[in-house]
């Protein structure tokens, strides 16, 4: 049962199971007090320079855009990042706050490659380690389970494995080759949800992406929510709770928090905004101008909403499909 192959990629965050346990034991407060706060307070308190940060779900879909913009406004530096992403990762990279990336996919789907990612990585500014999408998510799952690694049959035989930090062993039960993925414990995670109570009990509509796993794999968790609802309402349907309050450190009320991305059953993606950013992102100066206007140029998410315009947001609401 020897290790047959070891990926040569750097392990940007070590799978420290005991360290994680000790941390949550010491820091996770189970008190039923309100964690409602502004995005400024949440980010100032719970995001630190050098943190390993994760965002859920995916740039244009239920993404914590308002919190991401606040992280940039506060200039949190030397971040290590896990993406999976589009717009949110692009912004963090463009603001030059990122040292390294565990990457599975950063691009604009049918619209193609991310120019910002290209500049960041091709220049040698940002280090990368590559994984499959399943692998990254299973790394969260391992952390959420509290175990140091998890097996998969993905990545075998490929450079994706070679440039990751996965290992290949022989299964002691079947003799087959198996990839072992190191658990990925995040320092801080940002998750945007449909509704939460003030304590942090959260519900998500539609696909859950990797919210379940990431919420359980992080030391610090900032929730932004379209709606803050009564705790009694959440507790009426405990089977719909995706994230219980004792995992959560901050709850930020952020209507349209996923803009310019979509929020299912709430509002459609702002295609015009996204396409215009995509075009601007090809040019360094225009990218800066975008950041100046939409991130640095507003004090907070309220101002961002005003800048985008409530009429436009109402129109996006009218465009989203029902059930």
């Amino acid at each position, binding site marked *: 049962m020897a290790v047959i192959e070891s990926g040569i990629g750097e392990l940007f965050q070590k799978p420290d199971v005991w360290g994680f346990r000790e941390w949550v034991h010491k820091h996770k407060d189970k008190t039923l007090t309100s964690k409602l706060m502004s995005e400024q307070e949440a980010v100032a308190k719970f995001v630190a320079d050098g943190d390993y940060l994760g965002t859920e779900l995916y740039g244009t879909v239920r993404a914590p855009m308002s919190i991401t913009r606040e992280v940039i406004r506060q200039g949190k530096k030397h971040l290590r990042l896990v993406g999976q992403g589009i717009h949110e990762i692009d912004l963090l990279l463009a603001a030059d706050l990122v040292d390294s990336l565990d990457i599975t996919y*950063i691009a604009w789907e049918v619209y193609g490659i*991310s120019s910002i*990612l290209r500049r960041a*990585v091709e220049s040698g500014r940002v280090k990368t380690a590559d994984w*499959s*999408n399943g692998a990254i998510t299973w790394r969260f799952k391992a952390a959420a389970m509290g175990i140091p690694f998890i097996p998969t*049959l993905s990545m075998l035989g490929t450079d994706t494995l070679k440039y990751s930090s996965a290992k290949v062993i022989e299964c002691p039960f079947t003799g087959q*080759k198996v990839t072992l993925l190191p658990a990925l414990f995040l320092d801080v995670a940002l998750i945007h949800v449909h509704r939460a109570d003030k304590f942090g009990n959260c519900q998500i509509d539609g696909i859950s992406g990797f919210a379940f796993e990431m919420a359980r794999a992080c030391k610090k968790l900032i929730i932004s929510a379209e709606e803050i609802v009564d705790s009694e309402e959440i507790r009426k349907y405990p089977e719909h709770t995706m994230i219980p309050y004792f995992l959560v450190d901050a709850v930020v009320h952020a209507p349209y928090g996923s803009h310019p991305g979509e929020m299912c059953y709430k509002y459609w993606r702002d295609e015009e905004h996204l396409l215009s950013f995509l075009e601007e992102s090809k040019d360094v100066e225009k990218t800066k101008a975008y950041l100046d206007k939409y991130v640095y140029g507003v004090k907070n998410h309220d101002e961002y909403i005003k800048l985008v315009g409530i009429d436009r947001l109402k129109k996006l609401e009218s465009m989203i499909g029902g059930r």
Partner: protein
Amino acid sequence: MTEYNETEFLICVASRLMENRTVAFVGTGIPMLAASLAKKMHATELIVAFEFGGIGASLDKLPLGVGDSRTFHKAVIASGICDAMETAQRGFIEYGFLGGAQIDMYGNLNTTVIGKYWPPKVRLPGSGGANDLGSHCWKTIAIMRQHDVKRFVNKLDFLTTPGYLTGPGSREAAGLPPNTGPFRVVSNLGVMGYDEKSKRMMLLKTNPGVTAEQVVQNTEFEMLVEEKVGTNDPPTAEELKILRNDVDPDKLYI
């Protein structure tokens, strides 16, 4: 005969490969359009799976991304990435649709970098779900919009997603599931399959007006050619009508 563009043709060819009553794992773009067309034509019970958790959506409206709300509208389940990927890993997904910047004769794909790994000459998106699909789906179909020697190459700069790796038996030797692997390649020039014995890519059908010779010349590696190369039927009037009126009425892609 109705006029059609190259994208429309690719979509129709890919669509015809979709088998009714199977699960097909697709991404945005051509595979999604092809799936949507297939569901409205011959494969009404096709289950379309998206990696972020939408499985079995109606696809009434065309999604813009693999996670948007249209990927789980009236779906049989809206779960998450783990469930979707694990459904593939334990053998429930027949077809996986892939794309890439480079493909080699064993159907291996590169979507990671051009040049050396780091820092690369060109940083591409990365594997995303492609490596998982290429590992676990029973059959994968690669869509290559542009068939030329820079894309159909001797040696990939980076092997992101496994095809037949280095030839017969090498998938199994690497630990990948038996009896899985590349099935078809759909390009703007034609449709390729794989020689059963050598696992090497083989031209099966060309598109109208394209010769086998052209395909061979636009491929850097030695492309095998089936004895009797067929011709892909052009899109039918019905295919085009449904594609244009029902699948993509807003002309998002075509």
